[in-house]
């Protein structure tokens, strides 16, 4: 008898018990659906980080105090008491490295901005006047602070659009004052709107002040944690990285065997580190979901075993009217594969729907992965075969006489 006939028989047998078939499939539906949703969340995070990194521009370098070893043991970006990056170091880089076109320290301070009776918590970044050129900020009105403001540690501030929306309600803030930690800062400029980044974070919720001001007036420190450096071109990035490293080693008087006490990273280093983190997350999410798929498979086996016992008489009838053992085995195997594969396909559809809904509801980016879909189909078919084989063999091994007599 043909394979197609057995498929037809298996379908009819499943159709006779639709409720049970649906419940059995549920395990696989949830398993496959969550694998796809989880993997797409992981992949989405990865893609958005990639997009963000590439939006920084390929000629961007980070110089930070302390050593960092990507993928290795040592890790730290300079805020753990290290004081190995000084203002003199940065000035020397700008003066002596020809492949560097612009440089700005970056000191982050989270503070409350107060205007009248309104206040707004945001990140005030202490930078130099060169930042707009490095990070491609435009100025909407007013102007960015100047070299003189940096040198004199003037209490001036440049604000992003979100701050304007929340503290000034559409009026022009240039010339007005914002109080930060009870100190008045004069608004000298408003940044152009950048909108959300790839991860859905508001890039306009930011304010810039001279780094000297942030150091002295807000944080009371002389430490510099990180600096942005622009190479003159993308091609010059690697050269700039080497030259900065050489210069800083020389200035810090490090001999051949001593490790760097600072870190110079380019965007591809950052991308690599971010990728690593994200792929760990993707695997973690995926394998948790995979466990539920496995549980779904065991559910199928459970139901198929119950089904073989419950349908002993049916198996006896089939054998008596001429079904070979192999036909019975194939029928049960196909029933199990149909359950898991149908569950898998429904799971894929639900997983894709979840991947489309999650960004809207939770604001997380997702990216539906073809590999996850193909993998889920293959895996759910394998679940059907693996967990269906034992019950199917049990059914085929029944003796028709006993099976017919079974009550």
């Amino acid at each position, binding site marked *: *008898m*043909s394979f197609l*006939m057995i498929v*037809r*028989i298996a379908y*009819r047998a499943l159709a*006779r*018990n639709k409720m049970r078939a649906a419940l059995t499939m549920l395990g696989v539906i949830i398993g496959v659906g969550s694998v796809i949703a989880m993997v797409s969340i992981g992949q989405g995070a990865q893609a958005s980080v990639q997009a963000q990194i590439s939006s920084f521009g390929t000629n961007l370098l980070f110089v930070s105090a302390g050593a960092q070893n990507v993928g290795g043991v040592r890790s730290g970006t300079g805020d753990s008491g290290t004081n190995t990056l000084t203002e003199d170091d940065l000035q020397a880089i700008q003066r002596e490295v020809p492949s560097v076109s612009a440089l700005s320290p970056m000191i982050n301070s989270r503070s409350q901005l107060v205007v009248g009776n309104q206040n707004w918590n945001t990140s005030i970044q202490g930078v130099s006047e060169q930042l707009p050129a490095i990070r491609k900020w435009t100025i909407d009105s007013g102007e960015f602070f100047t070299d003189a403001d940096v040198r004199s540690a003037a209490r001036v501030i440049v604000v992003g659009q979100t701050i304007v929306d929340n503290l000034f309600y559409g009026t022009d803030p240039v010339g007005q004052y914002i109080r930060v930690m009870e100190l008045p800062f004069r608004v000298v400029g408003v940044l152009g709107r950048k909108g959300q980044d790839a991860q859905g974070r508001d890039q306009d919720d930011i304010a810039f002040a001279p780094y000297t001001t942030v150091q002295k007036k807000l944080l009371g420190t002389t430490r510099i944690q990180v600096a942005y450096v622009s190479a003159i071109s993308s091609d010059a990035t690697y050269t700039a990285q080497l030259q900065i490293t050489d210069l800083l080693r020389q200035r810090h008087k490090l001999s051949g065997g001593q490790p760097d006490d600072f870190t110079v990273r380019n965007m591809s280093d950052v991308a690599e580190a971010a990728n690593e983190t994200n792929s760990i997350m993707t695997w973690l999410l995926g394998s948790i979901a995979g466990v539920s798929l496995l549980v779904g498979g065991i559910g199928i086996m459970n139901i198929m075993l119950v089904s073989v016992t419950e349908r002993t*008489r*049916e198996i*006896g*009838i*089939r*054998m*008596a*009217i*001429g*079904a*070979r*053992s*192999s*036909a019975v085995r194939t029928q049960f195997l196909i029933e199990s594969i149909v359950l898991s594969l149908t569950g898998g396909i429904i799971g894929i559809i639900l997983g894709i729907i979840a991947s489309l809904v999650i960004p809207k509801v939770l604001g997380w980016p997702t990216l539906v992965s073809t590999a996850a879909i193909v993998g889920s189909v293959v895996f759910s078919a394998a679940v059907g075969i693996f967990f269906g084989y034992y019950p199917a063999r049990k059914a085929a091994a029944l003796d*028709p*006489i006993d099976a*017919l007599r079974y009550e």
Partner: protein
Amino acid sequence: MAAILEQPVAEPTDELKVRKTTEPRTVIELDHIHKTYTMGDVEVHALRGVSLTIKEGEFVAIMGASGSGKSTTMNIIGCLDRPTRGTYILDGQDVSEMTKDERADVRSQKLGFVFQGFNLLSRTSAMENVELPMLYAGLDTQERHKRASEALTAVGLAGREQNHPNQLSGGQQQRVAIARALVNHPALILADEPTGNLDSRTSIEVMEIFQRLNREQGITLVLVTHETDIAEYAKRVVVFKDGKIKKDSVVEHSRDAAEELRNLPAVEEDDDDDE
């Protein structure tokens, strides 16, 4: 009824000789069949040398008390079980040494079963139940539908094709089972206590179908029963006792189910619609 018991026992081997000269084909030839079961340490001799020949077109009732060996014989005739010793030739084929799969194929092609408990697939239409043996025999859809409709019509169930077993009375279910046994044009239909679960009127109706199939289509029938009055519808009765054939006799005046039905008070056609 008593007429059967008064018949002389015909020696099976003699009968074989006599019938060899006449025309009808031999459908079943059991030759010194033994069947021994081992239950724990005890050997149970279910059959102790059974020889039986059944020709095409016969209607044989097998009788006997429980433990007489009639069920074992029925299982062996039905190729559900193999004899421990002896040969069994079914429709010219030696099936006594066949493998499980070969016997499954023989059941598919040469045998039709009717059981006491009907044994229809639940939640499956009468049509699909009747089609089932043809699915296993590998017939195409058109042929299956055609033959299934014909078989259901032959047992008087035209118009009931889409009913599920739970929508049919016991008698109707048994008729579906008979239709299912018929569709592959078997050499032999085996009925195991087919009227055991039916009331007397429905039993007569079922026997009427068997008699009609036997008379009009020449279908060979073997009927296992412990009810003497049911056995009287057959043309020949074989009585088992202690694993041997005790008596093998021809029924001189078989009961005629069709005539009995005509003489019964009429019943509303649809009273057995639902249970």
